[in-house]
């Protein structure tokens, strides 16, 4: 039985999805709101959050039903990404391109570039990476045990386990040297901070902090790209600097933007699937025991962890024309936020949606995005990282015990944990 099944009493009066503090509420409360929206106002309209120095737009529809979300996502010509997929507020075009890269791009350009990079993320290429994911996970978990044992037995699931695994995997794929990795982690945290005050000191000017973080990441990439042009290696950066699209090479800016996307997307998402997965298993010990005892559950368990945690809460689409969708009229320029986290608990699709069931078989969740050309490029990689991490957690840190509530990231976009306190009961 899941604690989350006990739905807190909420009503929609005073609910504002643009209020950043809404996203600090416990997941059960947020899901209770999504349940109401899905039933009562499946296209609820919200005013946009104010961001200093940017013009506040007209508002957006919050899409919470699985079917509506899929219909929008799978019609990219009508609901485009090119006006910004990762920000509610319209950003200046150059910023949009710089931070969004493929995510905020439409076909035909999107399809061309996607084909280049997708080569690096196919199941077969990843098969060759299995060894390295396994090695990285083994190493990180042994280090986490040493850290706990060297102190009072405590550790932070985020800093000691969930963050370093995807960071090392994606940096290995890109060929980022060890000495740059702390910088990569810190700057990617700022890019996806959602303005969380712990990460953005100057709350009056979050844009400058975003820009500086992006420039720092771009700086690492420019240097790496130049090195790979001189001395090619077996890494993704080399593929990016040497591949041509229809006889045309990616520009330095396109490569830098894509690098930022991969680092940020590859780090923040898997990290939160792992950290919130650990939290979910500690809240559902019977599910943890079930998975630990049965490796054949890996496939369904990983999907259920992704459905349950929905690390990316939403992406945006913008209508390119007037029309109607499942009874909702819209006009060109209207913004839609696709709330994957809400669709992933839609009772029209998922039986007992608020029950964590690691054996859930039919699980057409949108944790990697809904149908459409922007489906998560790194889905296979993420699945691999999550499966290996949990198997090794059961094996190497069976005495891991969550000891307190997490610190949540104040972000509507990333369902993130900043810290999750834990201890190894066998360390002392």
């Amino acid at each position: 039985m899941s604690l989350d099944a006990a739905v807190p009493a909420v009503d929609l009066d005073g609910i504002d999805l643009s209020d950043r503090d809404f996203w600090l509420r416990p997941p059960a409360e947020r899901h209770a709101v999504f349940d109401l929206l899905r039933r009562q106002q499946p296209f609820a309209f919200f005013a946009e959050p104010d961001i200093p120095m940017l013009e506040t737009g007209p508002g957006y529809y919050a899409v919470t039903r699985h079917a509506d979300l899929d219909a929008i996502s799978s019609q990219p010509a009508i609901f485009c990404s090119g006006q910004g997929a990762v920000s509610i507020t319209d950003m200046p075009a150059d910023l949009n391109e710089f931070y969004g890269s493929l995510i905020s791009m439409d076909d035909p350009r999107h399809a061309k570039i996607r084909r280049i990079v997708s080569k690096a993320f196919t199941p077969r290429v990843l098969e060759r990476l299995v060894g390295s994911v396994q090695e990285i996970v083994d190493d990180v978990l042994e280090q986490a045990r040493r850290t706990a044992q060297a102190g009072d037995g405590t550790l932070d699931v985020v800093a000691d386990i969930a963050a370093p695994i995807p960071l090392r995997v994606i940096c290995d794929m890109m060929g980022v040297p060890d000495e740059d990795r702390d910088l990569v982690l810190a700057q990617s945290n700022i890019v996806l901070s959602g303005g969380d005050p712990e990460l953005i000191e100057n709350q009056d000017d979050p844009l400058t902090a975003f820009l500086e973080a992006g420039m720092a990441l771009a700086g690492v990439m420019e240097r790496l790209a130049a090195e790979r042009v001189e001395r090619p290696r077996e890494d993704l950066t080399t593929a990016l600097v040497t591949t041509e699209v229809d006889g045309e090479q990616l520009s330095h800016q396109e490569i830098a933007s894509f690098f930022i996307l991969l680092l940020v997307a590859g780090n923040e998402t898997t990290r939160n699937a792992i950290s919130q997965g650990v939290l979910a298993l500690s809240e559902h010990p019977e599910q943890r025991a079930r998975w630990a005892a049965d490796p054949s559950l890996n496939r369904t368990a990983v999907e259920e962890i992704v459905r349950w945690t929905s690390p990316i809460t939403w992406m945006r689409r913008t209508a390119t024309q007037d029309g109607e969708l499942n009874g909702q009229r819209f006009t060109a320029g209207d913004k839609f936020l696709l709330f994957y986290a809400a669709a992933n608990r839609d009772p029209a699709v998922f039986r007992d949606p608020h029950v964590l069931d690691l054996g859930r078989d039919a699980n057409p969740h949108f944790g990697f995005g809904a149908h459409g050309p922007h489906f998560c490029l790194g889905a296979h990689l993420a699945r691999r990282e999550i499966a290996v991490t949990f198997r090794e957690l059961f094996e190497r840190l069976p005495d891991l015990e969550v000891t307190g509530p997490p610190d949540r990231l104040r972000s509507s976009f990333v369902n993130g944990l900043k810290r999750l306190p834990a201890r190894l009961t066998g360390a002392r």
Partner: protein
Amino acid sequence: MSRVVVDRDRCVGSGSCEALAPSVFEVDDDGVLALLRPEPADDELPDVRDAVQACPTRALTLAD
């Protein structure tokens, strides 16, 4: 005999199909989807149906 059909304009080589039915689908080193067995065996059909369902760009169909 059921036959797999790929819409090449839609396929982006995500490899979701290969993850579910590796005996039938394979994204090659150029990122292009190859059909290893365009007419899957009966015992492969459940996985192939999952793969068709899971294709993020709805590029796959199973024709009878």
